[in-house]
């Protein structure tokens, strides 16, 4: 039971980072990306490759993962600069679908559908952090750093410029904000952090394959942000906890057959997303704070 809870807490920390970074795009900058699992995956694959071939040091692997994810995020920044609204959603969908195919087919880089196996236990500067408890501490530390950085950034001029951009792009531009630079920067920062989450995920699972980085995962991440409350600091975390505890809670209900839990879970978060949009478009946390 304790082991189960530690595992759940680690996953909450990892997805907490991912959802917080997606919230930067969706909640603060109004860039509605459905390609976030792609960068989560890039982070995980890069970390896995670094751990397998260079060094099992978490800091090295996570830094490499974050840098590569951040650099490749320019693929997402490009359409974000050119188009808005429906067009951007469509572009990010296209990107996500291409990425899923590449993850599944580029055998030399990603191991194909079989994935990369045997990722060595994480170490930091020679210390072993592979035990579940130590790894949980590491994940929580990463989450704390992410939250601190996001909080500082969003309170400062960068955050305010972003929110201005989200609410009215032309007004932000009229006030002399460099819209192109702001958008590119926020996409890079968001993808940098999800790269770290990917690295944590790779070490935690000791195994990565395409299953974890498909469109469904992107939708789950989006659901976490939206259900929790986009544009708030704690919202995405609330969403992550709610969605990750859901399967555990459902397994206690005796009348649902174990094989159908995944389906029931999908139904619940689908319906939850729709219901929230109808009744509380600002999400669970957004509700207590009133308008964002």
């Amino acid at each position, binding site marked *: 039971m304790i082991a189960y809870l530690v595992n759940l807490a680690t996953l909450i920390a990892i997805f907490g980072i991912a959802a917080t970074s997606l919230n930067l795009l*969706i909640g603060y900058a109004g860039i509605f990306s459905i390609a976030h699992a792609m960068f989560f995956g890039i982070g995980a694959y890069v970390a896995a490759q670094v751990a397998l071939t260079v060094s099992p040091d978490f800091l090295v692997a996570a830094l490499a993962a974050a840098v590569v994810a951040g650099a490749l995020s320019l693929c997402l920044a490009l*359409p974000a600069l050119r188009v808005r609204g429906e067009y951007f959603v469509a572009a990010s*969908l296209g990107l996500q679908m*291409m990425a899923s195919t590449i993850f599944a087919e580029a055998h030399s880089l990603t191991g194909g559908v079989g994935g990369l196996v045997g990722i060595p236990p994480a170490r930091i500067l020679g210390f072993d952090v592979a035990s579940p408890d130590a790894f949980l501490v590491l994940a929580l530390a990463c989450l704390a750093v992410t939250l601190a950085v996001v909080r500082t950034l969003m309170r400062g001029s960068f955050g305010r410029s972003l929110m201005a951009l989200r609410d009215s792009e032309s007004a932000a531009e009229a006030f002399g904000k460099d819209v192109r630079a702001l958008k590119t920067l926020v996409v890079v920062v968001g993808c940098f952090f999800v790269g770290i989450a990917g690295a944590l995920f790779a070490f935690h699972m000791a195994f990565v394959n395409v299953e974890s980085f498909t469109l469904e995962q992107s939708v789950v991440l989006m659901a976490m942000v939206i259900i929790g409350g986009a544009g708030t600091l704690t919202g995405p975390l609330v969403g992550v906890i709610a969605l990750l505890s859901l399967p555990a809670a459902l397994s206690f209900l005796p009348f649902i057959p174990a094989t159908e839990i995944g389906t029931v879970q999908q139904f619940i978060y689908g319906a939850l997303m729709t219901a929230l949009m109808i009744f509380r478009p600002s999400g669970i946390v957004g509700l207590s704070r009133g308008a964002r």
Partner: protein
Amino acid sequence: MLLTQLAVAGIQTGMLYALTAAGFALIFGATRVFHVAHGATFILAGYAFLEAVQLGLHWSLASGVALLLAVAFGLFMDALVYRPIQKHEGSFFTVFVASFGAGIAMQALIQFFFGGGFATISVPLTRAAEVLPGLYIAPVFWVALAVVVVVFAAVSLFLERTHAGLGLRALSENPELLRAYGLSARRLSALAFVLGSALAVPGAILTTVTTGIQPADSAHVMLVSLAATVVGGIGSIRGAALAGLFLGLVENLVVSVVDTQWSQAASFVVLFAFILFRPNGLMGRAGAR
């Protein structure tokens, strides 16, 4: 001959994409709702047809059942999901997320009752015959062709010649003015959902009898409709249909160059390229974004 065979397969897939995408484009054009639950309409119709046929209904009655359910789902989404949202906020993303969520929920529901695997029924129409040396065409190809031509003719006639069709086009251009002239925007948007959802039905039925249908098709159909609408030019039904046909062709023809696993990605490369270099699409109005 391989190329011709692939082209024939591509045209068949493309025709079904064209119909489904036209439905999506019609709804989007008239109501500005990004109805991504359209994919769920598709699988709902497919499974309804399948279930009705297995219960012993004649195929025409079964098609009727599928049509009825698809239209009901479209109306349900319009009345109980989109309208309440548009009443209080109506930002593009809110509607999009709600639609996405409903699509996921519907897909899960179908998976719960019918399982996640392929379901199909075999009909004599799908047995391929050699038309030219080395070129096989199943009779269902001609059925699909006939259905597509008839449906498109009917839809264009409706949109161009009838009062309601004119109203639909007016709704997309200026809903305020429409209201000022005393037409009901509500009734017209319901009409758009009826027509748009109905357009997904032929594709769903023909897919069920040819390749078989599975719950995961919901996402695929949604993606293809969305891609076709963007590539065709948002707001243009004809453009969406053309782009649907084009995407079906691309998906099948690339198989001659790369492995089959890449064929779906090919359509998204096309989509991505269009968004970057020609965001107004094949037939979109300039500056429509």
